[in-house]
């Protein structure tokens, strides 16, 4: 009887785990199967024509990369600041805890609200209209908690002996920050940023009001008032009237490209994360 219970638990949980993996395989399989025929060199390098029914998605990919680059640039200094404040400058455990809490709260803010905030402040109040800069700012603030937490975890696992040795050489706090803490926590920033970008790449809600349009944008000519095309918004719009079979194949192709982009970021972060995890275990 006990043996039977044991066996059934094993089988049941194994079924759950296989269901997870099965879902992954089915989803990737479906998208790859339907989208593969559309993806070609021309698809990646040509611009969109006939409202998505023809041509490629070059400027959509470009727009997404511009947004991601901006988000990376925006999040980096703030994440470094917050991680250093948490790991070095804030002395009282209470304020450190509050800072972490703030980051967790920010991480839990629904992405549509970042979009609404950007719409209110930049698009309407400052009158920028749809602008890639606003989209990048919002995506940057959205990925900030991921980057900052990953970075400060890394800073916390830095061996105390390294900092002690640098202090014993007569280096002051700033010198230690620049020559010991920042170089050695770079991996934490990299992996956090890659994970953050993996999430930001697929986000539609923060950019649909603020940064991206469906057609008619190429390389942004200006800083503030130029919208871009983007992959997720492209898919979002086409998905809503996807009855034209010609659009259908292109749509799945775009989804496949987006999926590959996201997987690229999360898999690129993987070796770093494993290395840091091992280092944390050994140290």
């Amino acid at each position: 009887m006990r043996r039977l219970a044991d066996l059934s638990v094993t089988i049941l949980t194994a079924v759950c785990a296989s269901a997870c993996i099965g879902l992954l395989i089915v989803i990737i399989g479906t998208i790859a199967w339907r989208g593969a025929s559309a993806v070609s060199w021309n698809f990646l390098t040509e611009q969109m024509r006939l409202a998505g029914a023809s041509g490629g998605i070059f400027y959509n990919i470009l727009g997404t990369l511009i947004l991601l680059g901006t988000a990376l640039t925006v999040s980096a200094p703030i994440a470094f600041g917050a991680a250093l404040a948490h790991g070095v400058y804030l002395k009282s455990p209470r304020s450190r805890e509050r800072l972490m809490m703030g980051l967790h709260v920010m991480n839990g803010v629904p992405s549509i609200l970042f979009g609404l905030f950007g719409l209110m402040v930049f698009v309407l109040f400052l009158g920028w209209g749809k602008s890639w800069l606003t989209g990048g700012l919002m995506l940057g603030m959205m990925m900030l908690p991921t980057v900052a937490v990953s970075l400060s975890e890394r800073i916390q696992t830095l061996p105390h002996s390294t900092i002690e040795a640098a202090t014993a050489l007569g280096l002051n706090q700033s010198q230690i920050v620049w020559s010991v803490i920042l170089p050695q926590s770079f991996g934490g920033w990299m992996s956090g940023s890659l994970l953050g970008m993996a999430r930001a790449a697929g986000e539609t809600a923060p950019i649909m009001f603020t940064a991206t349009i469906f057609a008619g944008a190429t390389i942004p000519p200006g800083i503030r008032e130029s919208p871009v095309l983007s992959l997720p918004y492209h898919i979002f719009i086409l998905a809503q009237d996807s009855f034209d079979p010609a659009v259908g194949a292109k749509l799945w192709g775009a989804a496949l490209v987006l999926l590959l982009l996201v997987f690229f970021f999360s898999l690129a972060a993987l070796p770093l994360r494993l290395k840091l995890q091992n280092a944390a275990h050994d140290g």
Partner: protein
Amino acid sequence: MMDKQITSLHPSEEPGCCGRNEGCLLEIAGLFVHAGKRTILGNVSLSIKERQVFGIVGPSGAGKSTLLRAINRLLDLQPAFHVEGSIRLRGEDVYGAGVDPDDLRRRIGMLFQQPVVFPASIEANVIFGLRHHRRLRREEKAAEVESALRGAALWNEVKDRLREPALRLSVGQQQRLCLARTLAVNPEIILMDEPTSALDARSTDAIENLLHVLKRDRTIILVTHNLSQARRVTDWVACLCTEQGEGRLLESACCDAFFSSEACQKVFEKLEDS
């Protein structure tokens, strides 16, 4: 120079080893170190003369490392530690108002039990501290690197691979690299916290030989649990031991007198057992 009589120090008495004008470099008086509610060091008073190897021996847990870290104020990094009493370097109170601990640490270098090299090239490790203290021109940099590495007797082993990662060196070489790094900053005191306990016999020899050269210009405070090492290299020895959970100073005497001192025999037996 060295007087050969036993100078016993009892906590209540004034430290009286050297007169005020006899090159007394570091004067520790009534030093207490508390960590939270626990007392780690209780009422330690010591006088340390210039240009000698000053040994500190004692069982583990007697607060030897804590004493060293109190001298160069490394304990400041751990807010739980609290230091009372005075430590004077050439008459200036190390814990006095307005003292910049970073400037203090430029005058008092330190070598740790485990070598701590930074994940950078050998060359970068040597000038790791120095390049922050003054601006170096390129040719100056090379000269400083060579001088420090020669001072640590490492130059011949690494001169052809200065740009290789320092982590590829053996542990013994790493420890000498740490010494070179400290020498590059050019401190007048070097604190050594059991610097050879992680090393093999050959590297230990190398470091011990260096001590004899280094003490010509500098003062070295060497913590060791190895009594024969203390006998070999030190000029003066202080012994810390544990009483009621806190570290106390048992004896401070010149080397020869120290090893014939009765009071220390018990401690020696204990140390040699372990």
